[in-house]
């Protein structure tokens, strides 16, 4: 048996690392968001400035990330659902092999790929024109908010699907069979029996994706070079172009609040479920 003091000593290096490398910079940037350098005082000046300049971007970020998360949720349920309930072994095997690929591609590469794919003269439009579905005059560039959403969904769906398919596979198979036995079709089983039992995992996957998408700089920078854009681009711009850490910190604080809302909703639900079970 290890004594209490020894065990504290054992985790001390990890704790120190955590404090020095993570908590200190975080706390520092949160505090310095309230420092007005030019006026030399503390206050909410950075926030009013951030809101005045970037309120549209804050809303834009929120809409993009929420929409992407919703699409990721829907697609991952569809894919994981088919992997669990699909009847053609060959189709299931192919899908299982295919869906993970985007997991191994970094965001910056994904963005680059999407640039060549979604541009006005990109592969997607060329293909549609070749097939005769569009004329060259009708083609439009998707390199705007839609491009960001498509890239996020393409990149993050495999991640959530991976978690979800694992959770579905670990469900007792007879739960599905008993519903089938009573006459339920597959779609009904998916939404009535399977998804409610993996809802926790889906929530976790979506929250992790939400946080991830909030923090990606490369995708909005490369795909959407116009206004409005996402908060990460604004933060980079404030720092690189103006050396304005105050507003950048304020924007970071706002981004942090946006993710904290989601995390809080999740924790509350988790707590309610726990107390409900006890």
């Amino acid at each position, binding site marked *: 048996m290890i004594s209490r003091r020894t065990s504290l000593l054992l985790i001390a290096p990890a704790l120190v690392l955590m404090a020095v490398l993570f908590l200190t910079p975080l706390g520092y940037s949160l505090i310095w968001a309230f420092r007005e350098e030019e006026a030399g005082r503390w206050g909410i000046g950075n926030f009013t400035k951030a809101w005045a300049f970037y309120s549209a971007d804050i809303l834009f970020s929120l809409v993009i990330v929420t929409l992407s998360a919703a699409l990721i949720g829907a697609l991952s349920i569809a894919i994981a659902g088919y992997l669990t309930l699909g009847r053609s072994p060959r189709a299931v095997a192919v899908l299982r092999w295919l869906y993970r690929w985007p997991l191994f591609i970094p965001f910056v590469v994904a963005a680059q790929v999407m640039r060549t794919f979604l541009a006005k003269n990109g592969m997607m439009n060329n293909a549609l024109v070749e097939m005769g579905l569009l004329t060259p005059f009708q083609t439009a560039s998707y390199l705007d908010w839609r491009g960001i959403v498509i890239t996020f969904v393409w990149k993050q769906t495999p991640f959530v699907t991976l978690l979800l398919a694992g959770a579905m596979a670990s469900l*007792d198979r*007879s*739960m599905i*069979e*008993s*519903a*089938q*036995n*009573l*006459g*339920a*079709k597959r779609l*009904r089983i998916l939404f*009535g*029996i399977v998804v*409610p*039992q993996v809802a926790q995992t889906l929530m976790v996957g979506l929250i992790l994706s939400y946080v991830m998408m909030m923090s990606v700089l490369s995708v909005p920078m490369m795909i959407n070079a116009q206004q409005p854009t996402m908060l990460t681009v604004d933060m980079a711009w404030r720092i690189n172009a103006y050396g304005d850490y105050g507003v950048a910190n304020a924007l970071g604080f706002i981004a942090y609040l946006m993710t904290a809302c989601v995390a809080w909703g999740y924790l509350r639900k988790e707590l309610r479920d726990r107390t409900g*079970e006890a």
Partner: protein
Amino acid sequence: MMQQAVQAHAPAEGPAPLGAAISLKDLHLGYDRTDVIAGLSLDVQAGEFIALLGASGCGKTTLLRALAGFVPVRQGQILLDGTDLSHTPPEARGMAMMFQSYALWPHMTVAQNIGYGLKLRGQSRAQIAARVADIAGLVGLGDLTGRRIAALSGGQKQRVALARALAVDPPVLLLDEPLSNLDAGTRGTMRHEIRALQQRLGLTTILVTHDRQEAMSMADRVVILNRGRIAQIGTPEEVYHRPADSYVARFMGATNTLPVDLGGGEELILSLPDGARARLPRAALHVPQTVAPGPAELIFRSDAVELGEVNGAGQGGAGPNSAGLTLRGRVAQHSYLGSVYRHEIRIGALRLMADAARKMPIGADVDACIPATALSLFPARSQTAVTGSKAAAPVAHPL
């Protein structure tokens, strides 16, 4: 353990049975390249209670799952009241199955679990609530319908699973080892309750079990499966007292095997392993298969043996007896089973199990008498290709 086998088929009295007749014709089932069930045919009458009994791996669960549609039929037919269902998907078969693990949905209440099948059938909320209350009362769940599944005991879960299966008025009820997860006391009660419900509703019921007592106490007819084939079909009394082969005899609890050398005609002359000879009238023994002169097996239950202590210096070894066999041996071990003591008797290289109300001391010399009517004679195992070396509890064997 007496059965209502005969009464159950009397169609005159009571309400018309809900159940449907099932007919299996030359059924082949399997996984990958091996057939688990090969060429099985079976007719089940409407309202009949059938138990599929066998050791693990004999194909009984595969057969049940094929009836429910979860195992594809390779060849043959599954007919329900004359309609071929062998290629119908599971959701369209209408046979309600009760799973071994119960397979209740933890995110729903008891009432939602029971009412799920009715919801699928598009019934109104009021209809569902009424039916759920009915069924919950029927299986003895009464006021538990608002509970979560996690808050139920094993026995209660079992009742919910049964109620969920019964709620949709299925023509056939499939039970996959329904009682194996319950403690002994609850199991006894549930056996009785399920049987009573089945009788009351007139459901055609197929039970899969490896417990011979469960099969005999619940079913009208018992089907004993051995390596994917039917070893015997019969009423519980028939399979118990008149086993068709040595596999069935062993599976139904006849654990003692005595290798003999057979001679004679109507009067059998048995050469016992210790060299002694016994003469028994062939008509007194149960001889279901043709047994050629030569090596054979006598199989009998441990409760058929009467043990008597040898006083003083009697005659040595085994001897003939007009009413049966008498074998002399020594008590090697005993254990208490509750109502009787089970003794392990060593007779030369052989070991036999014998039950007696009185405990014999270890090391005592005893006479084991087996009446001729309790003996079943089968060809020796080497002569019969498929007799099931995996029988339930082969205890007596040469050392």
